[in-house]
């Protein structure tokens, strides 16, 4: 039990170490999710406009 | 080509003088910004003397940035920029001429106003020589960097704050060494190394900025 507590305490520097890693996680994961969401949105937008065009007889 | 260069400088300076407001507005802004600080931080003379180099430089930087709009935009709007780009004189030379005109109507008045304002901020006498020297070397660099920012934002509507966002990070080295030169003189050391770095920066800006600005102008004219 104390081993885990010691680890979490980070030698007394927990207030600095964990926010640093936490911030890194938030930023990197956030950027990841945001970028993938944008890609999905663009795919959706393209799929909406392409079949409509093809249906009207436009050239690819 | 030198004839064309001189002609463009003369034209731009004449237009700026005729518009009257411009150079005076820039200097007035400089004065107002500097004058705000005693109101903001209190009139205690030693404190003002301590912050004087930084305040003078930041105010000069902001005042120079304020006036960048007119380097190219007026000419773009009335079509003369297009004609200048098509002229036999290379666009780089034209840009350089316009930058010189900008400095003559902005940087030079700032340079003349600075000692007066330095007295208001209680700057010790030791710092005056370095102040003039640093501003003399720094304000042309600011005009050069500013011209690049002004040219890049030509195609943007309402580009005002964007120009500042682009120019100020690039101007940080000028600011850093300009202030350092004055502080060195105030502590009895020589300002020469800092002034030499400012000269180096100016030479670098002279070499790169006209090309970048000319490319940006051409982009805006397409």
């Amino acid at each position, binding site marked *: 039990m104390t081993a885990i507590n010691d680890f979490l305490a*980070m030698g007394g520097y927990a207030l*600095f170490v964990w926010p640093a890693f936490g911030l890194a996680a938030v930023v990197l994961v956030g950027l990841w999710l945001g970028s993938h969401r944008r890609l999905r949105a*663009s795919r959706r937008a393209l799929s909406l406009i392409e079949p409509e065009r093809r249906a009207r007889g436009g050239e690819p | 080509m030198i004839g064309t260069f001189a002609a463009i400088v003369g034209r731009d300076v004449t237009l700026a003088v005729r518009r009257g407001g411009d150079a005076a507005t820039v200097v007035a802004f400089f004065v107002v910004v500097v004058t705000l600080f005693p109101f903001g931080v209190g009139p205690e003379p030693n404190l003002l003397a301590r912050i004087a180099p930084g305040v003078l430089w930041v105010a000069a930087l902001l005042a120079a940035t304020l006036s960048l709009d007119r380097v190219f935009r007026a000419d773009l709007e009335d079509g003369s920029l297009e004609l200048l780009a098509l002229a036999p004189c290379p666009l780089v030379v034209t840009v350089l001429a316009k930058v010189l005109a900008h400095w003559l109507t902005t940087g030079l008045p700032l340079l003349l106003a600075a000692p007066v304002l330095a007295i208001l901020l209680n700057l010790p006498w030791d710092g005056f020589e370095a102040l003039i020297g640093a501003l003399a070397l720094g304000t042309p660099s600011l005009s050069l960097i500013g011209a690049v920012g002004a040219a890049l934002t030509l195609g943007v509507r309402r580009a005002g704050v964007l120009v500042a966002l682009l120019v100020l*990070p690039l101007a940080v080295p000028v600011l850093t060494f300009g202030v350092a030169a004055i502080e060195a003189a105030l502590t009895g050391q020589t300002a020469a190394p800092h002034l030499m770095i400012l000269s180096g920066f100016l030479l670098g800006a002279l070499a790169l900025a006209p090309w*970048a600005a000319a490319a940006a102008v051409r982009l805006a004219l397409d």
Partner: protein
Amino acid sequence: MSWHLLASPARFMRYSERIRPWASALALGAIAIGLYQGLFASPADYQQGDTVRIMYVHVPSAWMALFCYTAMAVSSAGYLVWKQPLAEIAARATAPIGACFTALALATGSLWGKPMWGTWWVWDARLTSVLVLLFLYLGYMALADAFDDPVKGGKAASILALVGFVNVPIVKFSVDWWNTLHQPVSVARMDGPTIDPAMLAPLLIMAAGFTLYYVALVIVRMQALVLERRVRALQQVAAGA
């Protein structure tokens, strides 16, 4: 924009989609291993204690901040010289990633600096030039988006990226050229790293993980930009018809 202009982007879409899953998986793996080693399996520093573990996110972020700007500048140069539209798309896709890494480097550095130096921030050459780097990223993104015509925006931003590249060597050598509070170079040195090998390994693994993360994410962002431009082109055609 006509179809043949998008033909090589189409090839890009096919090939990049093959690389992307691998890059993502490897990035995740490397970061996981790096985190394990950095947080558990590596020693604390005899001077800095456990705060040294912040190094395992701070240093790779800083390296990526410079790497991304260099990639952005090289792509921009390629775009201005060879007019390859994918190069401009690559630069645009890189910018937000680089900005995030720069901000992360500054924030984690601040969290490391407070216990070590006693201050959250100091205006020394290294920190100031990295802050300027962040402003350059933000300026690039702001300029590119400020134009109605995205092609013009891309060109203007490319010029800005190149002009701002002078800051990259300043950041890199700032700790050598000036007396800074920030510590001098300890990894990429002429006579080899001065850092303990037990700490060097997780550091390099995290750096590899971050680089693979960049590869995966820049592909995702580039794909999104390619598709968005295709949509815009089709909308313009529809509007004209």
